[in-house]
């Protein structure tokens, strides 16, 4: 008798489990889900750093009277992709359109969560976008998302601090120049930059090795080769950064995106950053005291005379496979990334990846309100001109791991030990490579570690 409650509970649980198990495997035929391209109620998950989404969506709805878009601000890239994988696991509640950080797109493409956009002809748009962001969004040579913003890696520096140290920021063309400048700046008490090896440094890390031509991992179907330290590009990177650490030329105690980081940018302790082109707005609000002092320049090169760029951050819009309105969803994606919406996004401060906008006069027009504000902060420099140049530079092909979120979150576990000087960077990256290999095997890949 007293087991009744247990029995009741167990019965209820089993009944629900059957229901849950059933729902996991129900919705996989995507071809039937195109829906009506002109009539749909779309749900769109993403974040809204410029606070401009509402207006742009209203304009889209005006241009496409049959379609309504409900925008859910899901906060951050990490929260959005977590929410998406939950919704995909549940088999319902997923949005039609989702904003993802570029490196996470592959994971969802591999696990069949996103629609191959070449079904809608997106592959033909390749030449309209800058190469950097476009390349990151391909899986099996098919686009699974279109870039909505991008982040070519830039060299931001505080001219006031550089002047004090007797360094001309303009003349830093190579990483060797950068190293010499680092020594002079350290002599004044500041640091040329901060590197702490935390997970917040993962994206700048990938950008820098990307620029160095490194291939720390190669994905070929179900095979992954990890070559974290013997690759020539990696060797170049490791030697360089190890030197900065050993000679105390970088601040290894301040993680990116911490409050301390903002404060050090604000008081000149950190004199420069190599980070994505979206950084100006973060600097303007995070380091307001340095208004007029910051400048932006092209990324230092590994070899003199080169003009290689790399990507840091950037996000894209994708159509979710569970959507029943895929055609209309694509229409919205196209509008936001390639159509009129892209221009509006750029006008409100998002860094564009569409060549047409990068090359347009209005983008670099110093008299527009937005540009004027930014340029004032950067001492009158025409910021967008510099950024646009970087965005159109060639980039090497670079591929993220299909389980990039794991690679990003565990980066700090292993690599930061090099920055606290427990072990060398080479050892740390070797350990990191092992972790990545283990994860690959857990996910069913055949992994070779070199």
């Amino acid at each position, binding site marked *: *008798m*007293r*087991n*009744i*409650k*247990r029995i009741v509970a167990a019965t209820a649980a089993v009944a*629900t489990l059957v*229901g*849950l198990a059933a*729902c996991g495997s129900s919705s996989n035929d995507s071809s039937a889900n195109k829906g009506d391209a002109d009539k749909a109620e779309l749900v769109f*998950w993403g*974040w809204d*750093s*410029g*606070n401009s989404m*509402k207006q742009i969506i209203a304009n889209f709805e005006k241009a496409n009277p049959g379609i309504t878009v409900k925008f*859910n*601000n*899901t*906060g*951050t*890239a990490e*929260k959005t992709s977590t*929410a998406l994988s*939950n*919704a995909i*696991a*549940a*088999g*319902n*509640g997923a*949005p039609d359109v989702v904003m993802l950080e570029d490196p996470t797109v592959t994971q969802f493409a591999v696990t069949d969560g996103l629609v191959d956009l070449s079904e809608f002809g997106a592959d033909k748009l390749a030449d309209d976008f800058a190469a950097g962001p476009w390349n990151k969004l391909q899986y099996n040579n098919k686009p699974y998302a279109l870039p909505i*913003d991008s*982040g070519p890696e830039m060299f931001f520096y505080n001219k006031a601090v550089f002047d004090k140290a007797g360094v001309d920021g303009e003349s830093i063309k190579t990483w060797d120049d950068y190293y010499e400048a680092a020594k002079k700046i350290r002599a004044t008490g500041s640091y040329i930059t901060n590197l702490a090896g935390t997970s*917040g440094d993962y994206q700048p890390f990938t950008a820098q090795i990307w620029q160095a031509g490194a291939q720390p991992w190669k994905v070929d179907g179900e095979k992954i080769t990890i070559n974290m330290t013997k690759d020539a590009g990696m060797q170049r990177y490791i030697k360089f950064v190890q030197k900065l650490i050993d000679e105390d030329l970088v601040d290894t105690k301040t993680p990116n*995106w911490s*409050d301390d980081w*903002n*404060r050090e940018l*604000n*008081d000149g302790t950190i004199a420069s950053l190599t980070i*994505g082109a*979206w*950084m100006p*707005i*973060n600097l303007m*609000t*995070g*380091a*307001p*005291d340095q208004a007029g002092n910051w400048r932006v320049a092209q990324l230092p090169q590994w070899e003199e005379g080169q003009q290689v760029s790399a990507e840091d*951050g950037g*996000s894209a819009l994708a159509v979710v496979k569970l959507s029943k309105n895929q055609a209309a969803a694509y229409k919205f994606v196209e509008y936001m990334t390639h159509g009129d919406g892209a221009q509006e996004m750029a006008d409100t*401060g*998002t*860094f564009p990846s569409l060549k047409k906008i990068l090359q347009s006069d209005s983008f670099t027009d110093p008299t527009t309100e937005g540009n004027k504000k930014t340029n004032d902060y950067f001492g009158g420099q025409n910021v967008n001109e510099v950024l646009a140049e970087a965005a159109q530079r060639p980039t090497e092909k670079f591929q993220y791991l299909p389980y990039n979120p794991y690679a990003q979150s565990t980066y700090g576990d292993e690599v930061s030990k090099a920055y606290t000087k427990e072990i060398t960077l080479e050892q740390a990256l070797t350990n990191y490579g092992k972790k990545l290999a283990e994860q690959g095997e857990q996910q069913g890949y055949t992994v070779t570690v070199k």
Partner: protein
Amino acid sequence: MSAATTSAQSLREQERAARRAEKERQKRIARDEAAERRRAEKAGFANVNNPRRSVALTFLCAIFAVYCLFPFVYLMINATKTQADFTSTFGLGFGRTFALWDNIVTVFTYQDGIFGRWFINTILYVVVGAGGATLLAIMGGYALAKFRFPGRKLVFAIIIGAISVPGIALAVPQFLLFAKLGLTNTPWAMIIPSLVSTFGLYLMWIFSEQAVPTELLEAARVDGASEWRTFWTISLPLLAPGIVTTALFSIVATWNNYFLPLIMLKDANWYPLTIGLNQWKDQASTAGGQAIQNLVITGSLITIIPLIIAFLCLQKYWQSGLAAGAVKE
């Protein structure tokens, strides 16, 4: 048959006698206590009527109070700063401009005034969720205390077992279950999990045991009142102080609930304050995002104020409410 009737009758008589004896005893105790208190007062011993205060002990407690309160000082000082002052001036010093009013206004107008919406959501969740949790805990605790029903002894073990499972790992199954039923992204996803207050159940269990005399219930049953009616008209009023305490714990738990709504809600229009504020905080660490820590700090302060008011209002109940929780036989 007749034997059963007889024994039931004699039982009832016994009970009546016991009740009379108990009443007598209570009266005697009250009389004695009053007399003793008068005597003690004359003797100069510390009690409610004659507290003897110690400066040294007060000082020690004051140190602890400073430890408890100084983070609030930090919060209040920083709520008066602009974003620029927040990043550039010392944490426990005032900024160059006094921007408290500006900050409050901006908190309520930023992103089309969504903070107000979050505030109302939170109040909805607290009223329905914490209110419901309190009701369920009262009923459950009452049942556990006053009825020997099958399965009763398992309840505590099951509850301790269930809350030992890390909530993080349950979040996904909970999400799947709610998604299956189409409840995610609705207020129900926030309210239903809030309805369970295990601590409240435990509290009401003990409290009912002490505050509701079984004899009173038996008398009502003899008069032919239904269990339901007995509960509402006789037991509930007796439980009032315990209810207030349970409600307080549920309110705080719901008000500060973070992890579950984070998983369950994707529509900012249904966010509670904690999620909304955290989203604002994240904005500073998002590529291309505007740092608005001044709004996060001011918003946090505004979030805490209603709870402080609730505490102050309910303070007088705490003592008597939790009191029965450990009362002696």
